[in-house]
């Protein structure tokens, strides 16, 4: 497993925002919208182009101590997010 200082950053094409009418976070991009589930939204909210994956994991673990080991979930989601070009690495 890589614990390199890999720092994800949002693709500026996408805007993360809470939508009251949808009751969830969404990603907005030119003429489109994706609804996010809670864990995806939690992870994306931690991404600021400065915080590494390790730190994100640490922060989320503190926020949700009952969640157990979330490393795999985070990595899996980040891989999807990268494939969809929502994020890239600094």
């Amino acid at each position, binding site marked *: 497993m890589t614990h390199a200082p890999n720092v994800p950053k949002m693709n500026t094409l996408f805007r993360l925002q809470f939508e009251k009418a949808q009751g969830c976070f969404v990603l*907005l991009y030119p003429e489109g919208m994706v609804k996010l589930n809670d864990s995806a939204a939690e992870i994306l909210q931690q991404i600021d182009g400065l915080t590494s994956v390790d730190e994100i994991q640490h922060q989320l673990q503190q926020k949700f101590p009952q969640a157990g080991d979330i490393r795999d979930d985070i990595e899996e989601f980040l891989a999807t997010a990268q494939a969809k070009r929502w994020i890239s690495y600094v």
Partner: protein
Amino acid sequence: MSKDAHVGPPLWLLAELTYECPLHCAYCSNPTDLGKREDELTTEAWLDVLTQARELGSVQLGFSGGEPLLRKDLETLVEHGRQSGFYTNLITSGIGLTEKRIKQLKAAGLDHIQISFQAADPELNDAIAGRGKAFDQKLKMAEIVKSEGYPMVLNFVISRQNIEQIPQILELSCQLNADYVELATAQYYGWAFDNRDHLLPTQQQLRHAEATVNGFRDQQDNAGPQFIFVTPDYYEDRPKACMNGWASTFLTITPDGSALPCHSAKILPLDFPNVTEKTIADIWHKDFSFNHFRGESWMPQPCQSCDEKEKDFGGCRCQAFMLTGDMNRTDPVCSKSDDHHLITEAIEQAKNPTAPLKHRKRVADIALMKL
């Protein structure tokens, strides 16, 4: 019976600010009756429309037209839209854009500018657009849009006029560093319907174009522009799920304030409400015209007993109306429709156009030219 039980918000709000446009594309889907400038909504009325729609749950806001840049209050509307939480899209021909305006719009919070191109070189582009120097202007503006940090989306309307240029169009899109590129074959509404015989590519041309785009995409290696190719449904067996279902997702407001479930619905023999007379919530949830084709109870045969009706909702009401004269019929594109021969005949007829190509113009302009 209320059909309203599961109606979600109008996620997409299309604000057609004006039908005025400096270009004269024959594929334009604006109505052939362009209305009067004096009847356009005021700034206050538009601001109110945006506020109301946002409260109802609209999230994507498109400013289009015509050419929306012709409205001097565009920046004000963008600012209000962005501040209320919309993702704001400007859909423009690029004519009338300046570096200063691109920056002002950015400061107002505009999220995205989509520039339309008619072709990949000045000669053909300007011939289709009916205006000299249009291509150079678009090119310049596209570069500034990119350098100002907007997502860059290019839109090429594909027709028989430019379909042979697909390789050059792909190349130009890469040169301009576009993020998304829509290669959308013209939809036959408004002016484009009258010009269909000149615009509809042959099936062979389409197959070839699509294969070229697919081939290009395969060697792209997940870098460069994302190309989206949209074929005309005339060559399909099933109609498109028009507007994702009548009044399910899209709300169009025309320059004079008419509220429509799709930008071409004004041609239908239905009375559509106006935002100066009714609230957006009333229009969306209660108006007769919006409820009319919601759900399935309106559907004729063969749709009524078809197991695909949840996929395409019986197709496009405007297309059914334009081709059969009856908006309640199955979209003739469907091979199960009794009217499907109309499509095959249209394809045949397009091989030998009889009427001349009609560039989009105001009747008044045409009268002036004849003087």
